[in-house]
Each structure stands twice: as C-alpha cells, then as structure tokens.
C-alpha cells in the first residue's frame, strides 16, 4: 500500500509507549500522591480528613461527568442521583453479603453501570438538550424512590431497611485495613487514583478517539465508521461505573446514610463545578471535587455562608459558557462550524510555511 516515491513521515510513538512528557507528569503525580497519602493525614484533624475524603469521592463523580461533557459532548443532569443509586447498591451489598470491600466496590460500579446504561440506551437517540432533560427527569424519579425506600441499613427483605427515628440500624462497614478515618482517607485516595487511571486509559484509547470525533462532528464520526450509539453508551457506562464506585466509597465514609442528602439541586451544583474545574483535563475533576465538598466546609469554618458559593458557582457556569471556545458541550451547530472554518482558512492561508 505504501508509495515508494513519497517521503514517509516519521513514525509516531505507538500508543502503548510513554513519551518523555508523560514520564515527567507521572513523576509529579506520584510525588503529589505520596504527599497526600503520607503528609496530609498528619497535618489535618479527623474532621478535615473526612471532608477531604468526601472531596476525593466527589472528584470521581466529577470525573465521570467531565468525560461525558468534555469528551463526548453529552450532558447529564442526574449524576448525583446515580451516586445515590450507587450508595444504595453498595449499602445493600455490604449488609446482605459478607463480600470483601474491594469486591463490593467493583460490584457497585458494575451494577450501577448496567443500570446507567439501561437508562441511557433509549435516551441516546435524542439530541443533546433532550438527553440532558431526560437525565434530569430520571434523577428526579430516582431521588423520589430512594427517599421513599430509604437506604439499606441492615434490615430485612429486599429494601433491607430498618425504620427508626434517629437512624438506628448498622453502620456500613469499612475495609478491615482501613477502619479509622485517616486510614480510610488513604484508602479512598488510592481508589480515586485508580479510577483516574481507568479514565485516562479510556481517553487515550480507541474509545477516546471515537468520542472526540463524536464531540466535534457527528457526520465526520459517522463517515469514519464510528458506531455512535455504541460509543455514546460506552461513555455513559464509564461515567456510571465511576459514579457507582464513588457511591460505595461514600456509603462507607458516611457509615449511616440515614440523614445524608442527595438533593436535586446538587445535580446542578455538580454540573457547575465540573464546568468550572474544566472539562478537558482530568485534573479539572480534582478541582471540581474540592470546590464541591471542601470549599463549603472551609467557608463554614470561617463563619461565612456557604450560599455565597452557590452564587459563585452560578456565575462560574455563565462565565465558562460565555468564554469557552465553540466546542465545549456542543453538538454540531452548522453556523458555528462554517464560521470556524472560514476563520481557519483565513488563518491557514495567512500562515507562512
């Protein structure tokens, strides 16, 4: 197939190998992880460690949503409901089975993934706005159901719930090696890092390429042979899996889900922090997790109202959407693309080679 007379481009790095830039980044990340795992527990009180554990958990959720939005261009307004679902599934598994903690994490992720895909499948044929709205509706429905059935806490039957006025029933257990709060913090950070690796691997793979094509131009993706429904579903599945794992971590972090809230408004707040953290880089999810869980507590400790943050997040959403280049959360708007190409042509012709 190659034409002998044409000059050959230099061989690129094959996808499996790591570039020097990657190696440098990996070193930085490992150093950072080491700091977080070993230094931070000694610097902070148990209360703040629990808060940071929460931040790590929500960064996993943000990671899922960020991939949906930044890589595929799909918006889900229901990831917090999926988180609640994951927590429910995990609590049930914790109480009804004696499975080891990591297995429960994995199973929660997988079951939530199946449920999320099941929900996503009929909705994927709809356009971006309608998909977002369906996820909002599904989130609302899930929230109502969970509010009515409550979380499993060691009771009998399928719902595994024991009624009580102050949340009696058992606590969700933690892994044997990580029962104290500082230990659980470390455990969660490691699981979080693993989840980020899973996401990174996806983004660099065939799926990531297909997602990028879908995000920028559905016609081009189709013309390249990408099975759109399959890849959109895959993105949904990945986001649901990640969120399910996060739900399990959450259940064990909180212990007793009785008073834990998953209000509908948090779905919107999550969207805001993911947008603000940045949907193109995986680091954005870390920032989102901190914004979501750490900053409110910080403000609270300074006696400032956390409501200021909600206002800030609202402003953040508007700012990001206004200044972001066309391509963020976009489907393929023809006028925008034509404009972009016209500008590209001008710039291209103007460039000297």
């Amino acid at each position, binding site marked *: 197939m190659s034409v002998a007379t044409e000059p050959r481009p230099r061989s690129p790095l094959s996808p499996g190998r790591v570039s020097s830039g990657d190696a440098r980044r990996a070193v930085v990340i490992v150093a950072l992880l080491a700091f977080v795992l070993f230094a931070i527990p000694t610097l902070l009180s148990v209360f703040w460690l629990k808060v940071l554990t929460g931040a790590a958990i929500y960064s996993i959720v943000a990671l899922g949503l960020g991939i949906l939005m930044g890589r595929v261009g799909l*918006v889900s307004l229901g990831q917090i409901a999926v988180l609640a679902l994951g927590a429910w599934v995990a609590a049930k598994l914790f109480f009804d089975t004696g499975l080891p903690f990591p297995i429960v994490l994995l199973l929660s992720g997988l079951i939530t993934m199946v449920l999320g895909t099941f929900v996503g499948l*009929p909705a994927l044929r709809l356009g971006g*706005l*309608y998909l977002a709205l*369906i996820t909002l*509706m599904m989130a609302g429905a899930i929230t109502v159901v969970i509010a009515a059935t409550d979380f499993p806490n060691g009771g009998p039957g399928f719902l595994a719930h024991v009624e009580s006025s102050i949340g009696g029933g058992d606590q969700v257990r933690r892994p044997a090696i990580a029962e104290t709060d500082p230990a659980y913090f470390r455990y969660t950070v490691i699981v979080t890092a693993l989840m980020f690796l899973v996401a990174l691997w996806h983004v660099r793979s065939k799926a990531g390429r297909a997602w990028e094509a879908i995000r920028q131009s559905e016609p081009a993706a189709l013309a390249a042979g990408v099975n759109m429904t399959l890849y959109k579903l895959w993105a949904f599945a990945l986001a649901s899996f990640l969120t399910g794992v996060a739900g399990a971590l959450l259940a064990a972090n909180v212990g007793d889900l009785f008073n834990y809230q998953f209000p509908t408004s948090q779905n*919107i707040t999550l969207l805001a922090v993911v947008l603000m953290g940045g949907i193109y880089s995986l680091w954005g999810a870390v920032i989102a997790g901190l914004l979501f869980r750490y900053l409110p507590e910080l403000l609270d400790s300074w006696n400032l109202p956390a409501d200021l943050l*909600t206002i800030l997040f609202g402003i953040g959403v508007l700012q990001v*959407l206004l200044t972001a280049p066309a391509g963020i959360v976009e*489907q393929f708007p023809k006028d925008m693309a034509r404009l972009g190409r016209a500008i590209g042509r001008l710039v291209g012709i103007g460039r000297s080679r």
Partner: protein
Amino acid sequence: MPSWDEFQPFIVTGLALGGVYALSGVGLVVLYRATGVLNLAFGAVGAMGALIAWELINNAGWDDYPAYLMCILFGGVVTLAYGLLFGPPLANRDPLVKATASLGLALILLGTMSWIWSDKARSMVLPTSNENFMVSDVLVNYTQVIGFAFGVVVTFATAAFLRYTGLGTAMRALANDREITATLGVPVRRVEAAAWLGSGLLAGVAGLLLSNLVGLDATTLTFLVISSLAAALIARLQSLVVTLVAGIVVGLVNALITPILSISEYRDMTPFVLAIVALLWLSRHREISISRSA
C-alpha cells in the same frame, strides 16, 4: 382504593396546580420558540419574586396587592435583564448550551434566596385563598380557581397574541428562522426582549400562585419548574394547547395519587415519569427535532 368522595378535593387541587403548570409551560414554550432558550431558572425566578413579596408584606409593612405586583414585576425584570445580558452572546450556540447557562442563573438565585431568607418555614396567604365556595361536597378557594382559570386564559390569550398581533407574528417568524427574520427587517433583539419579559412576568405570576397552592419554600418552588417542563416537553416545545392539556394532566395525576396510600409516597414522581414516557414515545422514530430552524 379510596372512594369518589375522597378523590374529589384532590381533583380540585390537581386542576388548580395543573393550570399553573400550564401557564408556566406556556411561558417556557414561547420563550424557547422565540429565542432557543429553555429557561430552567423559571421556577427560581418565581420563587424569589414570591419571597420578595413576603418580605415586603411582613417586614416592610406593604399592602398585599402592591407586593404581589412587585413579585410579578421582579419576575419580568430579572428575566429580561438575563435575556438582555446573556441572550446575544449565546445566541448562536446550541440550545443545550443556552439551557445550561440558565442553570447558572438558577444557581445564583438559589444561593441568593438561601442567603437572605434561609430555609425557615414561611407562608404567604393570598386574600383569595380565604374566600371559598362549595362545589358538590368540595371546598374550593378562589386561588385555586385563579390557578386553573389563568392556565386556560393565558394559553388561549398567548395563542391569539402569537397569531393575530404584529409582535406575535414576529415571534413566530423568529422561532422559524432567526437569520431570515433578521434580514426581513424585524427588530430581532426587541422581539426577543418582549419574549423574555413576557415569560418572566408569567414566572412571577406562577411563583405567586404556587407559593399559595404548594408552599413558600425556595427549593420546592424552584424545582416545581420540572412539572411545567414536563408539560412543555410533552407538547414537544411547540403546541400551546397541548401544553395546557399536559399541564392539567400532570397536575391531576399528581394530586389524584395522593389519597392512594399504597403509592402515595411516590406521587412526586408523576411529572418525571410522564415526561420520560412522553419523550421516549415521541423519539421512537427519531423524529424529535430541537433545532429552531426547520
């Protein structure tokens, strides 16, 4: 299974709420058709208007009706301001982006409401809620009548407005194709501003009525927009009459489930389930088009 007698009062509340959902739905649909923005902050705007009215009546000594007027005006002004500020820069973006931006507004309002008024239980009673009459064995108050009546009146008045007035025709033209309408010499920005204002005023009215029919709580009122949204979606964001019928159905089904104790806990799911079913049914042939240009 409850008896007919037990259902009756819920028919009344259902119709009243349904009427308000319908008028909100109309507000959502008209704005969407004219500007491409599905204003998800619709409920939050109404909620804040209602809270402002409450504040004026209870802490500033205002009379009832001027305070209500302020609520409605607030709805119009805030929505119009948002539309003037954020409409033009986002005008060429995908409807998804525009709707997401409106979530930003919703967050700002939610945060502001929570900050100023926190979550304390409040109530605001419209004078019409104290006047009632009997229909067969059921007590009906005038606020409920207004809720239902406004729903019907607003739907048909808006439909007539769109069809028979110059401004309404301009809005329909915009809905069809923004670019062409602009080249025809229609003052696009002014027509859009009218749509924003009208929609905002409706948000204020809805907030006022819902604060009575449901309760004066920021979060609840904000997310009641979802019921109106369900009605608008069932109407495919197009037909006003379908929005009316859908709104009433959503209100009725929701209310009628209340006395059925076995599933009563799940009744808040009604708008969600109805919207999901409608959306999935309508999409079965991939016919849904959300783009404003044909």
